[in-house]
């Protein structure tokens, strides 16, 4: 059937990640740091503006169609930054108008596919990495962005490894706007009340689970109807037992899914289920419902992407007392396992693509470049989104929890891309279904591995 959709992903070396002054300068106050680069602060914007005005007279009016998935109602901060960036860009390029179409996640994905089938992609839009992006690249829908990445050292502004997730055959097809890792969030108040400490090994983790469960406190909030949520747990266990190499090599076919380390990870999942680690009815609950249990204090722990940080830091709708009681820990090590406690599951989320068929490709490329840079300067502070570009933690004012996550991101030994993103979409579907089965106890760890292996082989 289809070709493999695996994109080898990311070994983030600590050195490459040091957040020092890497050009991604901050707010208006700090112009000196980045004024020599043309990644736009006000002075540059004005200069560009003039130049653009002069040129504008003989430039044709053009429209860039831009489709994104951050509606104003649910994501007011994202929406505001997007509007500002567009306004800036339009001011710098007076002959350009940016037309927006906003759809929510699911509808967005559907529409992207439908418009592609008739070759009607918007000039600029958002895509996910690896498995999602690959069919679009194979269908010649997205245009490579390496030319703008080479300009003014744009490539180096991105966190090492993030761009690779959007690469096919050595060319980059999108500029990442998001980067996440998945920590285990926990409720300090509940831990204290039950006299348990943050576990450092899997065995300690099981003890914590037992203590909580026996006291009638559901240990972990999990909404496994959405399936990728359960996948996170499996991925971490696979990593802690076999190191990042075990799972990655099974997926890129240099290894096998029937590797005993991967089977052992599946056994551990069922062991956790047997210890009543997860809230009741988890296989029928959505992630949002599970999150509600955690935020209600009805569950002690919750493994989720760092995109959820605002709920535990800045979100005014959440009671201050709850926010203060939330911290996170790294997924515990497994005794005798090869995994490093600084290995994370995570990766970039949405990125900006430019359509191959766009008749305003030049302007569109300038737009995505401008967008990624400006977004990088503002997203974490104003919208709580960790961008794909490097953040200078010294220049932004962030809550402690954010700083901690950013530090851990910098010190990460390795980040394994979410399995369902890493795999081709059809293998991902099998994986996600098997995850539900495994958690539900309807399949054995051996069958779990075998089914994966079959799906991966068939997809080769």
């Amino acid at each position, binding site marked *: 059937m289809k070709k493999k959709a695996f994109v080898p992903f990311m070994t983030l070396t600590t050195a490459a990640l040091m957040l020092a002054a890497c050009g991604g300068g901050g707010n208006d106050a700090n112009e000196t740091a980045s004024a020599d680069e043309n990644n736009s602060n006000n002075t540059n914007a004005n200069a560009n503006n003039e130049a653009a005005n002069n040129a504008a007279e003989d430039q044709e009016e053009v429209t860039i169609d831009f489709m994104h998935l951050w509606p104003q109602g649910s994501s007011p901060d994202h929406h505001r930054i997007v509007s500002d960036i567009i306004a800036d860009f339009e001011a710098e390029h007076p002959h350009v108008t940016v037309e927006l179409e906003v759809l929510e996640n699911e509808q967005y994905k559907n529409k992207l596919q439908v418009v*592609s089938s008739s070759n009607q992609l918007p000039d600029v839009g958002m895509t996910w990495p690896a498995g999602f992006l690959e069919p679009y690249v194979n269908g010649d829908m997205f245009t490579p962005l390496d030319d703008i990445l080479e300009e003014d050292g744009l490539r180096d502004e991105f966190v090492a490894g993030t761009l690779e997730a959007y690469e096919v055959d050595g060319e980059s097809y999108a500029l990442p706007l998001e980067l996440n890792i998945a920590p285990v969030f926990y409720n300090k108040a509940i831990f204290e009340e039950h006299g348990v400490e943050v576990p450092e090994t899997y065995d300690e983790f099981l003890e914590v689970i037992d203590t909580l469960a026996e006291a009638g406190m559901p240990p972990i909030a999990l909404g496994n109807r959405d399936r990728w949520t359960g996948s996170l747990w499996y991925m971490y266990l696979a990593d802690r037992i076999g190191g990042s190499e075990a799972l990655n090599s099974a997926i890129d076919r240099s290894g096998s899914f029937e590797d005993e380390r991967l089977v052992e990870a599946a056994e551990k999942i069922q062991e956790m289920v047997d210890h009543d680690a997860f809230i*009741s009815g988890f296989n029928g609950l959505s992630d949002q419902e599970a999150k509600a249990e955690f935020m209600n204090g*009805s569950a002690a722990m919750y493994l989720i992407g760092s995109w959820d940080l605002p709920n535990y830091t800045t979100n005014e709708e959440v009671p201050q007392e709850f926010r203060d009681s939330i911290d996170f820990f790294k997924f515990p090590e497994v005794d005798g396992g090869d995994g490093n406690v600084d290995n994370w599951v995570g990766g970039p989320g949405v990125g900006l693509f430019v359509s191959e068929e766009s008749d305003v490709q030049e302007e569109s490329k300038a737009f995505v470049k401008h967008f990624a840079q400006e977004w990088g300067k503002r997203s974490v502070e104003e919208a709580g989104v960790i961008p794909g570009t490097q953040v200078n933690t010294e220049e932004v004012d962030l809550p402690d929890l954010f700083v901690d996550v950013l530090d851990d991101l910098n010190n990460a030994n390795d980040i394994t891309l979410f399995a369902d993103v890493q795999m081709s979409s059809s293998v991902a579907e099998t994986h996600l*279904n098997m995850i539900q089965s495994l958690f539900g106890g309807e399949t054995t760890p051996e069958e779990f591995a075998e089914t994966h292996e079959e799906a991966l082989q068939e997809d080769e």
Partner: protein
Amino acid sequence: MNKIMSDKRIIAMYTLPALLLILTLIYVPIVMTGYYGLMDWDGIGAMTFIGLENYAAVMTDGAFWSSAWHSFLLALFSVGSLVLYLGVSLVLAGNVKGADLFRKIYLIPMLLSSVAIAQLWMRVYHPTNGVMNRFLTSIGIENPPLWLSDTSIVLFAIFIPIIWQYAGFYIIIYYAALKNIPKELEEAAKIDGASPFQIAYKIKLPLISGIIKVTIVLAVIGSLKYFDLIYVMTDGGPNGASEVMASYMYKLAFRTNDFGYGSAIGFFMLVMILIVTYLIRRATATKDEVQY
């Protein structure tokens, strides 16, 4: 008379506009779906002709047949539920004081969109906070069922909101049909001393048998291609336990980039529904439509 009522020009005038509309907006997609089914296509880039490979694959696809079985069960339940709705409609259309108000109230849930209905029932079925399980625990049942995560009951748990969702639809049709029966017939029967049950069974039901057949067909077709609540409430899970044909097709076509295979399933569904509908119509066909 016959000449006027068989005027070809008028017949064409009355049927062609609608026919043209469905030929372009429904038949073209049907043909295209069948055609895409012959392709290896991710729904995005170029397609390759692979003949009947996809259709052959449908035959041996266990996941598809299990979803088809679920759809079939839903159809059975939906048809069964019609009896209930017919009963309610008979009562409402009878001489009950305030029937008008009751009828309006009964139809209100029908106005809710699927988004709202799904949210409502997720609250009903919530394993710990849900209306259902709170009630069950309050009467002393210790481990109430996990409605949407237990693979052995999830399918039936999800049938209930689906069937409830369509209650208003069928009641309003039956009600209109019953109200359409001339009053004199009922009056006459009453004078002859017939009981309300006899009137309902012997007079009313035969008179609306045409519309009952129509609702059976609608219930079956609607069930076999049902999608909405399943998609929102369980997404076909856990691990396919509540998957139906349409949700399976949707996943293949739009999530796993197997648009060709998804189309083959869509086309296959259409043919299956066509056959089932034909069988039902044959089974329920009587000598002649009832006339007053």
